């Protein structure tokens, strides 16, 4: 029966190559027995049309062969939750870094504004490429865990190694009784990313911060002391860490938690820029340019002293906030221990 032979040959191409002959021999025996039964019922051989209908009932060669494959999915159920979480985190970060880096390049005129439509169209391709890389990595891990299970025996057990004691506490509802919404959490990340972009662009466009006064400052005999550059970069680093932390919480689905530890860590990190300002050598924040001279009545000392006093004030407020957060954290721990007893 030529059609059956062609059908079996088409199935062979998609079978696992090590077992092709064995599987095909078994399929041939079973299909031929089926064919004999049908012909015995009809009392005659099947016609071409009847044979085609019968083969159509059996299913396409690809579908028949697929059931003999050892692996039926690209990423299996044990690995999929981790893959999904990583994919969300990576895509979020690719989008943030793409937007920030191109915003800086546009602002510093390393890219023309005419490139903006192209950049907008390219973002989905960047995201697709990143998703493809992550998927390939996890598909490779799945392949190794299926064919060499002893090498990746812990992959399947990842979800089993967790402690109920490490579960996060229930989120507290807002004062109006509602929980912190996803939209609000996303808005915070986007707004902070925009702030970071503006902060990074600002040295090239001081008008963003100072407005028209920026031109007056540029023309003035005053220039920035090195401590202001350190302050600038410490604020950028702090902002980046804050955006990163919030983006990770968003991707992990824990955006509803305020996180006392997070607040304390951020408060400690937030001390760095202020400490830099307070400990500036000679408390000098602005200097006279080499060829400059201040107009009569204006004093750099007064300006620098003023900035120093403001920095000290901010430092005291930040330390009080930190003390408050640490106090609340210790009090909560005490209450939890008392409740456990």
């Amino acid at each position, binding site marked *: 029966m030529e059609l059956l032979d062609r059908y079996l040959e088409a199935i062979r191409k998609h079978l696992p190559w090590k077992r092709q002959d064995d*599987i095909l*021999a*078994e*399929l041939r*025996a*079973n*299909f*031929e*027995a*089926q064919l004999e*039964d049908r012909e015995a019922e009809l009392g005659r051989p099947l016609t071409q049309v009847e044979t085609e209908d019968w083969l159509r009932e*059996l*299913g396409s060669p690809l*579908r*028949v062969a697929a*059931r*003999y494959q050892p692996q039926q999915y690209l990423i299996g159920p044990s690995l999929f939750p981790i893959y999904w979480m990583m994919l969300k985190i990576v895509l979020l970060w690719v989008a943030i870094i793409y937007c920030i880096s191109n915003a800086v390049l546009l602002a510093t005129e390393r890219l023309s504004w005419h490139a903006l439509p192209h950049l907008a169209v390219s973002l989905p391709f960047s995201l697709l490429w990143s998703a493809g890389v992550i998927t390939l990595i996890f598909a490779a891990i799945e392949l190794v865990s299926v064919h060499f299970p002893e090498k990746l025996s812990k992959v399947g057990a990842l979800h089993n190694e967790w402690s109920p004691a490490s579960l996060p506490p229930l989120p507290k509802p807002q004062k109006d009784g509602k929980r912190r919404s996803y939209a609000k959490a996303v808005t915070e990340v986007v707004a902070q990313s925009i702030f970071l972009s503006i902060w990074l662009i600002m040295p090239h466009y001081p008008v963003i911060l100072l407005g028209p006064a920026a031109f007056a400052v540029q023309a003035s005999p005053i220039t920035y002391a090195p401590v202001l550059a350190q302050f600038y970069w410490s604020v950028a680093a702090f902002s980046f860490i804050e955006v990163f932390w919030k983006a990770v919480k968003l991707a992990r689905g824990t955006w509803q938690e305020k996180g006392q530890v997070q607040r304390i860590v951020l408060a400690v990190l937030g001390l760095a820029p202020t400490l830099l300002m307070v400990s500036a050598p000679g408390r000098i924040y602005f200097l006279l340019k080499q060829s400059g001279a201040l107009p009569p009545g204006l004093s750099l000392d007064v300006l620098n002293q003023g900035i120093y006093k403001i920095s000290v004030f901010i430092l005291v407020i930040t330390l009080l906030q930190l003390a408050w957060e640490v106090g609340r954290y210790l009090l909560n721990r005490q209450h939890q221990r008392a409740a456990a007893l």
Partner: protein
Amino acid sequence: MTLSENLFENLRLELRRGCLTLAVLGQLRQEHYGYTLRKALAERGLAIDESTLYPLLRRLETQGLLTSQWREEEKRNKRFYRLSADGERIFTQLVDEWRSINAAIDNIFAH
């Protein structure tokens, strides 16, 4: 197929999927090759596709629950399956489990 029919069909397949292994092991207390096994199951009320049955037989053999041998019968080479020693042991355990589940389900329906 409507949404409701589709849902029923999916749930029906899920329900059957768990029973097929037990049915196949039960029928292979006697020796069969693929086609006669399928016929025997159909005659006893459990119709099963070739595309489901044959890979299932391979998987059960890989798991050590079945043994197979090629033999010529009616001028044709056929692969005959039957339960292995491990397969008989597991089958007995599965039958007990099946009866226990059946009793529990009947209990639930009775209330």
